[in-house]
């Protein structure tokens, strides 16, 4: 019967236009906050716009995903629809990979070309005549213009908290895989336990990262303004942290759905999608660990 099922096309939906209003207000609000702050003007109205947008987005997420979940639970989705979701999620994750690729690319360019050139090395080492006394090192602690960009006192080595975070995330990939197998085997308690463990590990990661950031800002003078090392460090780890947050929220939603009895051994795409996203977040961390912390 599943093969004969026609492809579900919803009739009308208010969620797209609500999502548009939400995203528009949110991003316009952020823009207004930044511009007004920079000009020394009041940001109160801008914050209101931002929060209004964020509320609309939250409402939309509940509503839209809610509809999808209800339709799925009602059996409206054929195998073909399931495949559409799989393609969709896979390509979405690919787009996220490319977003990180831009920042990794920037890091690569800076380390291999820009900083060495400024330091006098290579084809374009003539640049050094503009930056007397600047030496190219990595991590870059003394910037070409230390007055404009005071460098950090220290950087964060890989073998402290970052190593712990690596262990946490890699373990969490393991725990979610165990949870997945449990789901497929119909073992609900085991599923809940191992999914919960994954969430705990994710939250622990975020907590430790937050601590690391505070340590960097307050004790190490390692900030976004510390020159290119700080810029690339915080952009890469920061966006990664944002994605871990998103992934953790997705896992929590999955946990709540499992509590409500959703998902069967054969039919659990929402869980799989979240699991793929979680693995992606783990792989990005491993790249970060190697290219930002270690090498």
């Amino acid at each position, binding site marked *: 019967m599943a093969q004969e099922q026609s492809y579900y096309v*919803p009739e009308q939906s208010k969620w797209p236009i609500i999502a548009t209003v939400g995203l528009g207000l949110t991003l316009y609000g952020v823009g207004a906050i930044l511009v007004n702050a920079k000009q020394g003007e009041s940001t109160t109205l801008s914050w209101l716009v931002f929060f209004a947008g964020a509320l609309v987005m939250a409402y939309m997420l509940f509503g839209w995903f809610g509809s999808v979940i209800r339709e799925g639970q009602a059996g409206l989705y054929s195998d073909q629809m399931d495949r559409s979701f799989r393609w969709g999620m896979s390509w979405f994750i690919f787009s996220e990979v490319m977003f990180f690729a831009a920042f990794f690319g*920037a890091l690569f360019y800076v380390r291999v070309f*820009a900083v060495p050139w400024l330091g006098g090395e290579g084809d374009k080492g003539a640049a050094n005549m503009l930056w007397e006394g600047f030496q190219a090192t990595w991590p*870059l602690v003394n*910037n070409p213009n230390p007055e404009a960009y005071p460098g950090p006192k220290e950087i964060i080595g890989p073998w402290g908290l970052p190593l712990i975070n690596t262990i946490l995330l890699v373990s969490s990939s393991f725990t979610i895989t165990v949870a997945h197998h449990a789901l497929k085997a119909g073992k609900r308690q085991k599923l809940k336990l191992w999914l919960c463990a994954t969430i705990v590990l994710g939250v622990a990661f975020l907590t430790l990262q937050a601590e690391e950031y505070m340590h960097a800002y307050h004790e190490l003078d390692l900030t976004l*303004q510390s020159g290119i090392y700080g810029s690339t460090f915080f952009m890469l780890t920061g966006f990664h942290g944002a994605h871990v947050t998103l992934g953790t929220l997705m896992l929590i939603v999955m946990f709540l759905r499992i509590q409500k009895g959703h998902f069967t051994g054969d039919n659990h795409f929402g869980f799989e999608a979240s699991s793929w996203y979680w693995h992606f977040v783990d792989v990005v961390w491993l790249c970060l660990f190697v290219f930002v912390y270690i090498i």
Partner: protein
Amino acid sequence: MSAVADTHSQEHHHGPASGITRWLFTTNHKDIGTMYLIFSFTMFLLGGSMAMVIRAELFQPGLQIVQPEFFNQMTTMHGLIMVFGAVMPAFVGLANWMLPLMIGAPDMALPRMNNWSFWLLPCAFLILVSTLFMQGGAPNFGWTFYAPLSTTYGPPSTTFFIFAIHIMGISSIMGAINVIATILNLRAPGMTLMKMPLFVWTWLITAFLLIAVMPVLAGVVTMMLMDIHFGTSFFDASGGGDPVLFQHVFWFFGHPEVYIMILPAFGAISHIVSAFSRKPLFGYASMVYAVGAIALLSFVVWAHHMFTVGVPLTGQLFFMYATMLIAVPTGVKVFNWVTTMFRGSLTFEAPMLFAVAFIVLFTIGGFSGLMLAIAPADFQYHDTYFVVAHFHYVLVPGAIFGIFASAYFWLPKWTGHMYDETLAKTHFWLSFVGMNLAFFPMHFLGLAGMPRRIPDYALQFADFNMVSSIGAFLFGATQILFLFIVVKCVRGGEPAPAKPWEGAEGLEWTVPSPAPYHTFSTPPKVE
């Protein structure tokens, strides 16, 4: 509610709702396609008005109409609106209308997300266009927004520009995901990949390019935002960064972007040339491989936009060779189109007129592109009107004529009426003359030494600038005729059969004209 069988689903479909909520809440690919097309034409007229301001100022040497600060806003916004508001949404509109019809699918794979992709665009452009009215004016640093002109020296509206780009990017990425899922998953049984119509192939590959590079654009505008507001130094040598880093990341997006703006036209032109030659497309397989090759190569040529920034010699040579290489698959496509026409049985209705003009004039744009690829010669062409001529040839008689050709080709299917052929031919000839008058002299201006993005120029450039402006005014005015033709066709005209074009082939021509609101609820079988 249990799973419904085939026959039920058709009866459960209603016709379109009424009123404005039909358009706000729709999930129907035809509705969404129509909205994209209307939006795109509106943006085309808006971006075109800015071009009229530019050409009016450049009509004669001296500053007559606008000051340099505003002129820079016009050139910037003209580029942004045409690229992101006119060309890209037009192709997405064509995709929405035609892809499900061509593959025998009931709709796009993810219909609600489809509508969100559309509505994000008016939202983004509301923000972008509102920057014209902000203190400090709109973005004024060129559509390529190089740092540090766009970071340290940009107006306050730059921040809003960045968020508008983010919104457009989200729209494009979701749209592209939808296209890929639709093409890979919803083809009628029997339609293997190598039986897909060319427009479907070109959109599949375009969608891949979009998903790969729009996030990179998001990355670069985010780095810009950080440099402007959070004291980072991505593009500031004082902190160990490099302004050229901006250019590398931007053009990594930017080069595939220009293929995103032309590949769908390649697909549509293949359909049109074949239909009006009454002959199958020559070399189907090579056409597919050529598009794939162009797409792959497009990722490794970006620095040909940067030949004068001081890329080291080895890099320069690599990018020159890779760029020259793209001429090979592109040439194959042109040869195949001409061979399709050769010994066919040709008629020259409006779609075919635009298609023939496309082949000739896009190829001229391709030739100037090949000249630009020769790195040492590019030192004399770069950032001059020669480049402006090149990209306007590939974009105007390229992408835009491709869109016009497609519109005339498919208007009968969309509306159920034949458009007015005499008026359409008039639109073609006036556009053809106007466009060539506007842009061919720009080759000469560039070779004679006129730089880009200047509001005033030395006297030896005066004559060709005047000719160019006249051509531009003619081209611009003619587009009002197109509006008239479309509105007239929507409202009435000779009733169109399911297949108004004798030589046309494909599933889209098996459904009635106008296409019913829901089509292919049951997928057809393809031989």
